[in-house]
């Protein structure tokens, strides 16, 4: 697998800072987020509710709420800074070059319009084709996203389709104008696991077929493992750690990533979960130092005073924690997590051994 970060960068987000005006003050939702999306890759942004991951996605699409202020930073796409261009210019990008899939398929579809028409409308709006051609294209798209009996489904209203089918229609609409970039904001959170599995497989397949670059936003680390080439872990409006998917899952460095990984129920053991004590900070007045410090059992004095910079772990792997400073004491990840990762690595070794013998 090619994990070089020097691939062509399609989307470059730099130091993005977004606040919302509220009754009692400014909520600092995103505080200096930077990430790069290489062509044909999936970047996953993981975090809990309120970590700023959805606001980041909405900034890219230019659909922030009216009380949002982009304080600083840039979103570079195709030579333009998406934070600076006019709404009119944005209309040539949104839905055409960058597609978007939301969490809830029912609220992103028009309930009183047949689904076929909703797809053709998108095509007719943006491409110079006849109605008949648009219909053909829409049917093709529906087949692409795995909808059976397309001719029949074309005439259905959203309420006549199951949740999984609706999400497929939403994906078909997002892909109607062959975008370069697809932004998926929790696309499978509202779906059942078996349906989720099929939708994720489908998105992965479309990614290779159409050479899509995907920004995938989720809170579910299992889904991330399935989808991502690169992972960015967000907490309290900041990226706290990023790297390739293998680096984040097998060699996590930030205590928040540790906590997130070890609070997931594990199928292979009945160990008590390592819950993260407390709750996320109030973003009206974010803490001075590391925002995670008050919930962090490994926090040091400096964590409460000064924001840690990114420390380099490898060329692609960085983590913002003082624990990586040369003067910091040696702290190992929690034992539960260490054991779990070791088990996964052993499993991996056995798998390769098994395959090696099978090939001979």
């Amino acid at each position, binding site marked *: 697998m090619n994990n070089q970060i020097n691939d062509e960068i399609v989307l470059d987000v730099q130091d993005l800072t977004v606040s919302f005006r509220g009754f009692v003050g400014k909520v600092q939702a995103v505080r200096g987020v930077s990430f790069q999306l290489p062509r044909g890759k999936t970047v996953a942004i993981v975090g809990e509710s309120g970590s700023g991951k959805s606001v980041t996605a909405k900034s890219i699409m230019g659909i922030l709420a009216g009380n949002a202020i982009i304080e600083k930073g840039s979103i570079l796409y195709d030579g333009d800074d998406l934070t600076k261009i006019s709404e009119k210019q944005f209309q040539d990008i949104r839905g055409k070059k960058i597609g978007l899939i939301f969490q809830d398929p029912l609220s992103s579809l028009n309930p009183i319009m047949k689904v076929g028409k909703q797809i053709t409308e998108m095509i007719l709006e943006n491409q110079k084709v006849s109605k008949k051609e648009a219909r053909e294209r829409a049917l093709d798209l529906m087949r692409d996203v795995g909808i059976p009996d397309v001719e029949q489904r074309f005439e259905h209203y959203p309420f006549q389709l199951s949740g999984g089918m609706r999400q497929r229609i939403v994906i078909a609409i997002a892909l109607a104008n062959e975008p370069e970039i697809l932004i998926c904001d929790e696309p499978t959170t509202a779906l059942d696991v078996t349906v989720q599995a099929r939708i994720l497989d489908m998105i992965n397949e479309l990614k290779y077929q159409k050479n899509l670059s995907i920004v995938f936003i989720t809170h579910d680390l299992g889904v991330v493992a399935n989808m991502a080439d690169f992972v960015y872990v967000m907490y309290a409006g900041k990226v706290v750690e990023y790297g390739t998917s293998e680096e984040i899952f097998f060699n996590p460095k930030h205590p928040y990533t540790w906590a997130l990984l070890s609070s997931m129920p594990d199928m292979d053991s009945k160990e008590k979960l390592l*819950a993260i004590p407390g709750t996320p900070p109030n973003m009206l007045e974010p803490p001075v130092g590391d925002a995670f410090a008050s919930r962090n059992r490994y926090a040091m004095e400096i964590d409460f005073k000064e924001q840690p910079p990114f420390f380099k772990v490898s060329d692609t792997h960085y983590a913002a924690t003082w624990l990586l400073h040369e003067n910091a004491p040696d702290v190992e990840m929690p034992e539960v997590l260490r054991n779990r990762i070791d088990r996964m690595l052993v499993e991996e070794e056995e798998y390769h051994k098994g395959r090696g013998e099978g090939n001979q």
Partner: protein
Amino acid sequence: MSMYFYSGSGKSQQVVKAVDDVTFHIYQGETFGLVGESGCGKTTTGRSIIRLYTPTSGEMFLDGEDISGPMNSRLRRYITDKVAMIFQDPVDSLNPRMTVREIIGEGLEVRGIKDKAVVDEKVYSILNKVGLTREHATRYPHEFSGGQRQRIGIARAIVVEPAMVIADEPVSALDVSIQAQVINLLGSLKEDLGLTILFIAHDLSVVKHFSDRIGVMYYGKLVEVAEADELYDNPIHPYTRALLSAIPHPNPLSEKRRRRITYDGLETHDYSVEQPSMVEILPEHFVYCSPSEAESYRREFKRK
């Protein structure tokens, strides 16, 4: 136990068999996990047990007493005394106009404890047990975070010392880190108080983590019942296998090569000739299948 919903009348009458001929038992002090996807009838099963619905047919026994008969004040009293419920949505299930003390104390007052000091004492001690403090008692639900509200819901359920708790998706509305807190809390309460729990959820990893035995539901039928580890190590019913293969694991290497099993009930089984029923394939491991399927499942495990 069956629960059918009727809509329309005469020719246009439609019957939704939400729960169809489901049989299981829960031992004292045990946690029984009921999993399945949306619409499989797991919630209806739970609600029928506390008699929010009257089952269409079948019997339910609680501590040896029949609780499926016609509802009367004695039976209502019996069920509300013995069974408590924890709901999914911690926002909707707490009355916004009541303080935490009123919410938790209400169950006690209904049960005839009139002495305010006794109620207060019990409320404070239960708040401590669920990881809140007595200062929280005078506050209203909106002042709490999602995880804390679910703690209040749990406190309300266990303060009346029920024989059984039905937890319907108690953690699915919460963030992962908070989810772990609540699971750990339920786990320690289970041990301390010897609670019997019916744990209803769609997330298999959570259910597996928490339950002693697990029942898998599909389209209103219970298709497989076994001990938690047994079910994960030796899933037999094709739907259980499909469900297990669909869970994403936090392991990028194994995720990228895994094959998922798909399941279509109509294609997999041919029940036109043979009637399916619950069959014990392995010790304490029941599967819903026809006699010939049972035969082939058994053969499969003999070979192993």
